[in-house]
């Protein structure tokens, strides 16, 4: 205990920033949910008015559902593709690093690149796909202008960007698995499929646990691609909670209501991650 002072000194800078820019906003967020006032005007306490409004505002439920819907589309797809790519990478020698590099490359780039790419492929007027479609059928498909296609398209954009990260993560997981087990399994005559389902998947459980929780936290905050590609439309079919938070602050100039929405987002994240932890613990 004599080294207490040094230990605290070493922690001070981090705790300072952590306190001022994470804990403090967290606390004020709570109080802001009971306030109203514009971006540049002073706050006024309005009691539970914001909260009452969230319960009757249909857009709140819609954005929460949109966000969850987006996660349900994006996360399984990105995980499955990443797993397949990781397995493929794990079984090739020649060109291993080159493929790894190329597959990881999109992850590095701002979401803008991904958004732009899909614009060029899917845009109603000049998207490659639509140019071809128009030539063949005469009917272009407006992916981002279609209520039921817009969100899957957003998910696809995010999958394209995110898949490299998860691929490398899973690959690292696979390569850290005990080799001996595989030798034993092969001696027992297990083929590649049985090895995958009976060894690799169960052994990767800790990795999956971490990955799913992490991916959920990140994806529940989806914003960039929506802002760039659809701005929540058409008819709010791609409006995520974060998008609504942003709009309450800047378009509607209602930070108090935005804070309430933020609080809703925090609650959604906490509930979903808690449920996931629970589900994972249970099965162990």
């Amino acid at each position, binding site marked *: 205990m004599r080294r207490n002072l040094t230990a605290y000194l070493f922690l001070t800078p981090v705790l300072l920033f952590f306190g001022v820019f994470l804990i403090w906003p967290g606390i004020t967020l709570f109080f802001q949910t009971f306030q109203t006032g514009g971006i540049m005007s002073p706050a006024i306490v309005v009691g539970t008015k914001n909260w009452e409004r969230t319960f009757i505002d249909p857009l709140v439920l819609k954005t929460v559902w949109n966000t969850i819907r987006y996660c349900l589309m994006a996360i399984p797809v990105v995980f499955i593709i990443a797993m397949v790519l990781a397995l493929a990478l794990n079984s090739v020698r020649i060109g291993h690093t080159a493929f790894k590099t190329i597959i990881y490359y999109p992850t590095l780039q701002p979401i803008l690149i991904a958004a732009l790419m899909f614009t060029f492929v899917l845009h109603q007027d000049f998207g490659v796909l639509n140019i071809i479609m128009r*030539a063949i059928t005469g009917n272009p498909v407006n992916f981002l202008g279609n209520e039921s296609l817009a969100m899957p398209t957003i998910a696809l954009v995010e999958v394209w960007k995110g898949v490299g990260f998860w691929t490398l993560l899973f690959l690292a997981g696979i390569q850290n698995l005990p080799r001996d087990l595989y030798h034993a399994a092969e001696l027992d005559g297990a083929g590649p499929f049985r090895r995958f389902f009976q060894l690799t998947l169960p052994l990767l459980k800790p990795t999956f646990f971490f990955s799913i929780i992490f991916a959920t936290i990140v994806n529940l905050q989806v914003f960039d691609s929506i802002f760039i590609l659809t701005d929540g439309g058409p008819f709010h079919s791609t409006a995520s909670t974060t998008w609504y938070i942003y709009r309450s602050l800047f378009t509607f100039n209602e930070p108090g209501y935005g804070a309430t929405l933020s609080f809703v987002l925090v609650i959604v994240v906490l509930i979903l991650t808690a449920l996931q932890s629970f589900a994972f613990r249970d099965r162990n």
Partner: protein
Amino acid sequence: MWKLIGKQRNVVSLRPTPPVITVSYSVLFLAAIVSILPFLYILSTSVKDTQSLFSYPPEWIPEQLFWGNYVKLFQETSFLNWTFNTIFIGLSITILKLIIDAMAAYSLAKLQFIGKHIISSTLLMAVAIPVAALIIPLFFIVRDMGLLNTYWALILPALANPLGIFLLRSFIVSLPDELIHSARLDGASEWRVFTQLILPLISSGLVVHAVFTFMLQYTNFLWPLVAIQTETRQVLTVGISSLKSNFVVDWGLISAASLLATIPITILFIALQRFFLAQSLSSALKG
């Protein structure tokens, strides 16, 4: 007997069978094409004028290279400012974060003090806080500090993210205690132990952390969008996307900008490739 030996050889190398390899390569080729093609297409669009965008069949390699988009980008937009801002802010955050996170990680990994458990679990739980939910209070905090539209508005809040501490802690934890004890007995102060022993010994961890921090900063979108309104102070991501909000979207211009925006991070990627592995990130969180 022979069969057994043959089988054993196969087992020891655990080499995938030819069909598995074939399938693997096919999958990887497909993935590689999907990963790379967009960049090529953006490149091609950036050297086309708007007219030929709509031509059918699509013109992959334009017959006439059109440099107008690039000229316009440098002459009519703040692209150079954005690039400078992004790199400057990214580097500032990376350097500051590296120092403070390493200090905290050393403290949490190797020093004994009251409240260690509470502090480390608070930091760890904070990883689960959706940062997007904090932008509104953060906006007002930064506004009240008078930092809106300054570099500080982007630099300071980024230092609060605790994830990197756990990454570095996992590196420091694996160093033997005796090394630190020995240095202390040799007369080193805690600061000297930290700078002369810990930092050099976790250098690869520091690079991984730096690379992640910079990358995260480079792709950051929401917070700069909220905190910076002055166009010349903006970062690349938001700056380029603001090009889109004109009434008529100039796709060629956006393509040129996007393509150039990939260059700094690509250079970094090529230089520090092996540190971009995501492996350490997961071990940090699990540990």
